[in-house]
């Protein structure tokens, strides 16, 4: 399983007549998603806006987003994968037993109705949040949902899109993809990129104590990571770039204050549908930008002897 059938939010606005949110709470976490992109906007092929669209919310509890939904399906916690695979089986016309469905918290009739609605949509979209991708099953849940979206294209046009948080986390994936070939967790210690989530992902590295220095920028792991990972950041020389003195700054050896992205630092950020947008800062910061500081650290390191044997240290991702 793999691959993502997707589109831009502009296409959702102009075409989508069935909108499913799965394991996400846009009403509180992405407040303008409904009004700017998905539900209430009038689009070229959905001229009556909200009246032309159906919204289904799938979650383990009734969040404030349920008020906006036409149909709310409450799944038993950590049974999303079972619901997704049952939907895929129904859509393929395979036999389903009501008793195996019962453990998901939904009935077979509910799932059959859901599958019918998915198949009958003119243009359907599955938005999925961290309630799906960060709970039991993790990336296998995302893979099952992406497979469902792909398979629905046998009946109608269907796409899937993750509800990304944190400003430019999408841009991080995109930049790492075009510079190293992989979206995150890239190990460059052999002079070429290697990708292996679970081995080269940050929490795993820190829990094993693999790193002996860390540069943290645009994040505050000291406030968000598991305590043993934070403990390791405090043990090793940690360097933090941030507009504020953060939790991580307090356990770091070096903190450098930088301009706030989008407020006093210019540049480009990616929206969750991988559309790059320019920033228009309203203030002038007394501090340098993250971009400047990282470049200066690069230049300071570049003055030292290369760590790879001479002639073998050609840098593929070099930005300067």
């Amino acid at each position, binding site marked *: 399983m793999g691959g993502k059938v997707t589109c831009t939010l502009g296409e959702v606005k102009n075409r989508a007549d069935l909108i499913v949110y799965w394991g996400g709470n846009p009403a509180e976490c992405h407040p303008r*998603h409904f009004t700017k992109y998905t539900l209430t906007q009038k689009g070229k092929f959905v001229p009556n806006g909200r009246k032309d669209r159906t919204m289904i919310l799938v979650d383990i509890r009734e969040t404030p987003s349920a008020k906006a939904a036409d149909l709310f399906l409450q799944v038993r916690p950590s049974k999303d994968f079972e619901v997704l695979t049952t939907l895929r089986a129904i859509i393929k016309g395979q036999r389903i037993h009501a008793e195996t469905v019962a453990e998901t918290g939904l009935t077979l009739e509910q799932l059959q109705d859901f599958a019918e609605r998915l198949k009958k949509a003119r243009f359907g979209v599955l938005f999925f949040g961290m309630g799906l991708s*960060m709970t039991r099953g993790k990336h296998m849940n995302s893979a099952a949902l992406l497979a469902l979206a792909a398979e629905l294209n046998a009946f109608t046009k269907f796409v899937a899109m993750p509800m990304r*948080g*944190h*400003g*430019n986390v999408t*841009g991080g*994936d995109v*930049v*790492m993809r075009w*510079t190293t070939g992989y979206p995150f*967790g*890239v190990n460059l210690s*052999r*002079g070429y990129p290697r990708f292996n989530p679970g081995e*080269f992902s*940050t929490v795993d590295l820190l829990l094993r104590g693999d*790193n*002996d*220095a*860390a*540069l943290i*920028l*645009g*994040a505050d792991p000291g406030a968000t*990571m598991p305590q043993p990972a934070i403990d390791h950041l405090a043990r090793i*020389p940690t*360097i933090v770039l941030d*507009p504020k003195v953060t939790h991580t700054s307090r356990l770091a*050896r*070096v903190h450098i*204050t930088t301009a706030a*992205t*989008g*407020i*006093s*630092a210019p*540049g*480009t950020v*990616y*929206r*969750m549908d991988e559309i790059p*947008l320019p920033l*228009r800062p*309203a203030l*002038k910061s*007394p*501090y340098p*930008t993250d*971009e400047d*500081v*990282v*470049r200066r*650290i*690069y230049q300071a*390191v570049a003055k*030292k002897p290369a760590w790879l044997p001479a002639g073998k240290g050609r*840098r593929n*991702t070099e*930005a300067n």
Partner: protein
Amino acid sequence: MELTITKNATCTFCGCVCDDIELHADGERIVETKRACILGEAWFKNHTAERLYPDALIDGKPATLDDAIEAAADYLYNAHLPLVYGLSNVTCEAQREAVALAELIGGVIDSHTSL
């Protein structure tokens, strides 16, 4: 003081990256955020152009930017497997520099995506 108005400003708080915000600023802080949601308004008003923090800290003590950059370069250069992590609330231009630095120091680069 007269307010400067920035039209079609881009909010980087969440993944929606709304780019239709109108910001009114008095040079030091943003005082009005038209069309921003409550999260966006809090985000814009939470950062000012004031000099609230030292340029840099080394071992918790105020330091110059130049010294901090040298110290950072020494730590990263001397490490066997340095980690470059975060990249969420920085620009693509800064992310690109960070990838180049990670390659130069032979480290691992990772973002919030892996959490």
